[in-house]
């Protein structure tokens, strides 16, 4: 790195270092396939010659170059962490079995690099993202992942939009009544009562939770645009075409997310 290089924020410096240690441990662990006993690094200390600088509230570090005799020394001690230690010291962040990944939920709202930094912080799913936001606030996530709070808010707002995965007709037991419709997706419960319309007319909602809505449409409500609104500006829209109902496993051919 040149003298003018501002260096790296210390957090990223440590992450670059620990990823190297992980790589070394992984390579040594690979040998376990051919040898039952293998070496593993237990402790590692480093005395690194480096320059430190502060930009805003971020401490940067730059390794000393040739001829740099006035550099500071950073002393780092690292030890290998076992799974029980990790479980004991890390707050449990719940993960649902069929949860969307950050990529699915956030789309292009965050860059690949920003998503990677969230994953470094232990945030792999949307519920983990929200849980940590509730516990620590956006500023803590901003600090750890170096993502501006405003962008985090925008990403969470996008992730809160309802989304329709599938619409499935459910025949009723007596056979003569029109079938119900099950809407599968996510974010179907907001602060306001859910508003579901087909062709612009309200539809009776039998029950709703985050991942599923059961509708009891009138006979003429099996064709047209289905909209699900959970709050002002939060709406999903999909096209229904069940006028000629064909069977219990049929599903809507096309789903789309409405822009707020």
């Amino acid at each position, binding site marked *: *790195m040149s003298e003018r290089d501002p*260096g*790296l924020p210390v957090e*990223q*410096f440590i992450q*670059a*270092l620990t*990823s*190297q*240690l*992980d*790589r*070394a441990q992984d*390579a*040594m*662990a690979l*040998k*376990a396939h051919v040898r*039952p*006993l*293998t*070496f*593993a*690094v*237990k*402790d*590692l*200390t*480093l*005395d*690194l*010659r*480096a320059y430190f600088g502060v930009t805003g509230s971020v401490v940067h570090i*730059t*390794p*000393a*170059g*040739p*001829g*740099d*005799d006035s*550099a500071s*020394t950073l002393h780092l001690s690292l030890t290998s962490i076992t799974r029980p230690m990790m479980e004991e010291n890390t707050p449990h962040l719940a993960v649902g079995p069929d949860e969307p990944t950050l990529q699915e939920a956030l789309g292009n709202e965050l860059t*690949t*690099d920003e998503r990677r930094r969230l994953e470094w912080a232990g945030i792999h799913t949307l519920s983990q993202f929200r849980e940590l936001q509730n516990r620590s606030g956006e500023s803590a996530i901003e600090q750890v992942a170096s993502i501006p709070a405003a962008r985090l808010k925008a990403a969470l707002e996008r992730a809160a939009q309802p989304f329709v995965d599938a619409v499935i007709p459910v025949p009723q037991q007596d056979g003569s009544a029109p079938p119900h419709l099950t809407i599968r997706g996510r974010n179907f419960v907001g602060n306001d009562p859910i508003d579901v319309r087909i062709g612009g007319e309200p539809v009776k909602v039998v029950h709703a939770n985050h991942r599923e809505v059961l509708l009891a449409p009138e006979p003429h409500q099996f064709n047209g645009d289905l909209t699900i609104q959970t709050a002002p500006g939060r709406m999903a829209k999909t096209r229904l075409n069940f006028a000629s109902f064909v069977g219990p496993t049929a599903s809507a051919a096309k789903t789309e997310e409405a822009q707020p």
Partner: protein
Amino acid sequence: MSQRPLSDALRELVESVEPQGIAREQIRVTEAYFDVPLEVSLRRKGAATEFLGDLPNWRWRTAFDLRPGRMRVRCEIGESQ
């Protein structure tokens, strides 16, 4: 100036104390402790940064060479998980 990722240098260092050939059947190193000089630099790889670290190439340092830091590593043999 070192150009190898630290993981490569660390792995080679640790593996260097493992007995080779016939010695592997007769002797077992159970613990090793290294205290070695380490040259460190960073390499940008797109958005990511790679941590480079290696033992100095030369015993006698000139004004053009990095003044090394220090790395101490303790490793133990054990059954892998």
